[in-house]
């Protein structure tokens, strides 16, 4: 197998973990061996032209499984949610560049909503070096809190309506913490605030971005995202190949 491949994988477990949010475990030993936290898979849906990119949320190298947590956001993800344990789907994986892998730095993992799952893989590597600050709409929308805790991360939850944990923005909650690096995933306004926080603290910051994709491997140039090069000139990079995780100081958030 090259750096990535497309293979039919069997679903080992599927679970609905919140309203419209699903947790899928695939048997995928080859992919699990190669995958890195922050990478993603391109999932083929029968009858559909384009695959759906979903971040790898958990990697079990011994168990030979990959975990994905996704939200129904349109027709494709609604179809995906219909699959059950025992069914097979074709995955193109592992794709893209994940989070940097220096285990010793105290790292803030900061995610909003369906931006939370991509951070879990990083938490697994960081162990107690991770501070996970997770934001959700309300109590019902909270996912993966226990998973982060089990991995050793200091785990804090914020909700928009205060129905659980801290009442307010994740960035407000995170501002009370100490950290030497930041990994973030979530909606653009959140990412902007996270980047500002990291700049304030003078710590490196990495953001996981989304863009509509076709090939998923860097061939079609479909998933362009504006970036700054070393001299500060604007150019188009590609989320599937150059990302989805980017150094925050290179990213142009619009």
């Amino acid at each position: 197998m090259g750096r990535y491949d497309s293979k039919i994988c069997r679903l080992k477990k599927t679970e609905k973990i919140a309203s419209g949010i699903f947790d899928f475990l695939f048997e995928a030993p080859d992919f699990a061996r190669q995958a890195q936290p922050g990478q993603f898979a391109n999932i083929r849906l029968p009858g559909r032209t384009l695959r759906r990119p979903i971040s790898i949320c958990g990697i079990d190298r011994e168990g030979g499984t990959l975990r994905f947590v996704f939200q129904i956001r349109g027709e494709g993800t609604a179809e995906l949610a219909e699959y059950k344990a025992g069914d097979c789907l074709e995955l193109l994986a592992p794709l893209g560049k994940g989070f940097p892998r220096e285990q010793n730095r105290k790292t803030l993992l900061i995610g909003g909503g369906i931006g939370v799952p991509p951070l879990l893989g990083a938490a697994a590597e960081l162990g107690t070096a991770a501070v996970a600050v997770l934001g959700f709409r309300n109590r019902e929308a909270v996912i993966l809190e226990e998973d982060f805790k089990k991995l050793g991360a200091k785990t804090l939850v914020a909700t928009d309506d205060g129905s659980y944990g801290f009442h307010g923005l994740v960035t407000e909650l995170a501002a009370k913490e100490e950290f030497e690096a930041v990994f973030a995933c979530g909606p653009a306004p959140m990412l902007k605030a996270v980047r500002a926080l990291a700049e304030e603290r003078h710590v490196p910051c990495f953001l996981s971005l989304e863009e509509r994709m076709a090939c998923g491997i860097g061939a079609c140039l479909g998933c362009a995202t504006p970036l700054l090069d070393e001299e500060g000139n604007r150019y188009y990079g590609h989320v599937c190949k150059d990302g989805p995780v980017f150094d925050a100081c290179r990213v142009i958030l619009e």
Partner: protein
Amino acid sequence: MANLKVTVAGVEFENPLIAASGTFGFGKEYSEFYPLSALGGVSCKGITIKERPGNPPPRVTEAPGGMLNAVGLQNPGVDHFIEYDLPWLSRQGTKIIANVAGNAPEDYCATVEKLNDTCVDMVELNISCPNVKQGGVQFGTTCEGVFGITSEVRKHCKKPLMVKLSPNVTDISEMAVAAESAGADAVSMINTLTGMRIDIHTKRPILHNNTGGFSGPALLPIALRMVWQTAGKIKIPIVGLGGISTWQDAVEMLLAGASALQIGTVLFTDPYAPLKICEGLSEYMDKNGVESLKELTGGMRPW
């Protein structure tokens, strides 16, 4: 295994499957799946005289039966292509087609001149890319435009010259005739049909370019009709594309009049599609006693 070789404009392809321009980059990414020698050829991402940044995102989206794209000819420019992309690609054991685009005839001519002394096997003139606001599309939608640009480029091009036709016209066969009479060695057809989708929440087009090119399985019936309609009117070979996804589709395209095939969008659905199509074609030939794909080209009997 049957003999899948085809010859188009003097260029011999090991099999009829050529990766379509813009869907395969310069080949590197797909070489993780299989050696590129598994393909008859690769038509590279559209190249222009100077580097182009392409359109702002979103550039792609799905639509029933296919997808829309408005990449907008992002490419590193012909010099970079020759220096950095071509050397690797030329060692992969597949035929190389340089897809050339531009805003003005001078751009096209300058670009093909630079390609003359390279190992590129064929030049494909992209006069049909619907995504570039000026130029591009206008060459491809009138007979005069097609004739003009083709004959200009012909003067500067030492490679076999293929003209890629746009389906966004009233009669594509007239464009093919114009290309032939201007000296083209082959035509490839079809490029994408111009379409649009709208985000009903933001009331904005989904693609930042407003419109984009529709490609994928639903294009096949249109492409077959156009190839058939054209095959009777020109003597130069046709490379057929548009929605080919299965070996059955490939057979249909050959029967409609194509001498070779390109596949694009299906690569996104299944990167292994070209291998599966080759296998299917080969079995079909064995089963039906077809010794050379030439026997299939234009073999459809109309009612």
